[in-house]
């Protein structure tokens, strides 16, 4: 084979054969003649149903009858639009409300428009596309069974199936950021993939701002923050696919548990300087035990935003339930939410364990001066409020 043939062979290998379904082994091993008549009717019925389903699918993909329309789900206020208003393909939608506008597509995908954004729905040759003329949108796209969902701007085509992503467009270019899933961006004939926490701009003159900042206008900003990678290890830096700008988001939404501070005798600074404990003085050790422990352990606690973690958990659980009811258990967003809830659980557990370890360790150093009951109260209080110290008979002075 010559070189062009070899290159063409490589090109062909990029396509994969679709995977056939499993073989249905539930067949009669006896003679089929007695059921032949029934089987013929059953086959005819199956073919009829398949034909109907196929027709509907093809119509949907080609957009022949249904078109690529959207329905206003939340018009904001004041607004030119009303909730439930149907926006036909090609019809310009302007989010004139200061709160933006939320649209829903017929396949369940949701588009949140920032104020002062302009778009129109269009049919694509293999699906539907959102033509974003200017402004910012966040697309929560359900996975497409057939065809694709795109966001088209003047210089990019973004395939957003099964993702939650943001697209900004203005005269300088297009910026794409991904909160969840993997999008493909076609810019100048090149395809590039972006994963959660990554963003990309088609032009160097289009500034790459933090994704957190970029999505802060969204009604679901808090939720999207939880979707971004939580730890640096979760992100794999990749070289830019083109001269266009690209970067990974620095994960700071939920801070990881800080390392334990040095032991008290080495610690240069704690929030409250504990009273000096003379060696061998049991009474003094007991007297200042709770305060000393609490003050040192408290130096850890403010760095952990327990309330933010718990709030995120509640929101994720609610969203997961909503997605499950709407799209079923198999929807990627459901699994992803469950995984994030578990991750937050782990973080909460780790945070509590770290505070508890620290308190126990120091109690041991002062000879177990503080009772188990007080220790539990101290740990729980630090963990819950990050500031309050439990009222305890053994605590001699107010913690500041």
């Amino acid at each position, binding site marked *: 084979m010559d070189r062009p043939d070899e290159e063409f062979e490589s090109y062909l290998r990029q396509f994969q*054969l679709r995977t056939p379904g499993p073989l249905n082994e539930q067949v009669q091993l006896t003679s089929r003649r007695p059921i032949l008549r029934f089987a013929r009717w059953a086959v005819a019925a199956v073919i009829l149903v398949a034909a109907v389903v196929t027709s509907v699918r093809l119509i949907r993909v080609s957009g022949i009858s249904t078109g690529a329309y959207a329905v206003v789900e939340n018009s904001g206020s004041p607004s030119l639009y009303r909730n439930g208003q149907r926006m036909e393909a090609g019809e310009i939608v302007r989010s004139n409300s200061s709160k933006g506008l939320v649209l829903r597509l017929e396949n369940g995908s949701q588009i949140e428009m920032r104020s002062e954004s302009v778009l129109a729905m269009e049919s694509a040759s293999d699906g539907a596309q959102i033509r974003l003329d200017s402004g910012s949108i966040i697309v929560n796209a359900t996975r497409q069974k057939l065809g694709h969902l795109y966001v088209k701007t003047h210089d990019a085509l973004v395939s957003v199936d099964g993702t939650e992503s943001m697209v900004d467009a203005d005269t300088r270019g297009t910026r794409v950021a991904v909160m969840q899933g993997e999008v493909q961006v076609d810019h100048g004939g090149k395809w590039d993939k972006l994963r959660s926490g990554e963003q990309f701009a088609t032009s160097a003159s289009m500034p790459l701002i933090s994704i957190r900042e970029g999505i802060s206008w969204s009604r679901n900003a808090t939720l999207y923050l939880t979707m971004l990678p939580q730890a640096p290890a979760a992100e794999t830096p990749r070289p830019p696919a083109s001269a266009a700008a690209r970067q990974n988001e620095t994960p700071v939404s939920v801070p990881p548990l800080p390392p334990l501070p040095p032991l008290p005798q080495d610690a240069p600074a704690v929030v409250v300087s504990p009273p000096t404990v003379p060696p061998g003085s049991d009474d003094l050790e007991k007297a200042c035990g709770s305060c000393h422990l609490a003050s040192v352990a408290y130096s850890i606690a403010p760095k952990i935003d327990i309330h933010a973690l718990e709030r995120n958990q509640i929101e994720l659980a609610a969203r997961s339930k909503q997605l499950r009811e709407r799209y079923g258990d198999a929807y990627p967003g459901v699994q992803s939410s469950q995984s994030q809830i578990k991750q937050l659980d782990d973080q909460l557990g780790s945070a509590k364990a770290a505070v508890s370890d620290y308190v126990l360790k120091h109690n041991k150093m002062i000879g177990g001066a503080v009772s188990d009951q007080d220790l539990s109260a101290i740990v729980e209080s630090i963990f819950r409020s990050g500031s309050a110290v439990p009222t305890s008979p053994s605590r001699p002075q107010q913690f500041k």
Partner: protein
Amino acid sequence: MDRNQVRSLYEKHSRGLFAYACSFSNSFASAEDSVHQVFVRLLRLDLQVPDSPVPYLYRAVRNAVLNQNRNRGREVDLEDLWLETTAGTTHAGIELQSTLQELPSEQREVIILHIWGQLSFEEIGDALEISSNTAASRYRYGLRKLRQQFQVVSKDR
């Protein structure tokens, strides 16, 4: 041949057989149905399998596809695409599948079996009862013709 033997045959050869079915069919569903139909008949003991079952299976699948093809057109649409495509490659996949249908069947089947069925030329020779050299030769000619035709089709669009 018992159920386990049939299952084993399916696990071992279904990929190649499916690719082979695709070489005759413009329809993913039709190709899939044809392969399943053959194995369902094996399970029902409707077919007597000879000692060397592989060439027999390929012939049976071919016949099943040709039977299904009688009333089908040659136009490829999205539903019928048997190539997996990603966003942005759907058109290329449809063009490729359409262009493959223009090749002589003996070249088309070898290309599909080799590239997507992942069969070696020896395995193709065994399955189609031709020599491995013949399979390789058909592949080479077919690939060149496909490349030339595919380029023409791509330029036209």
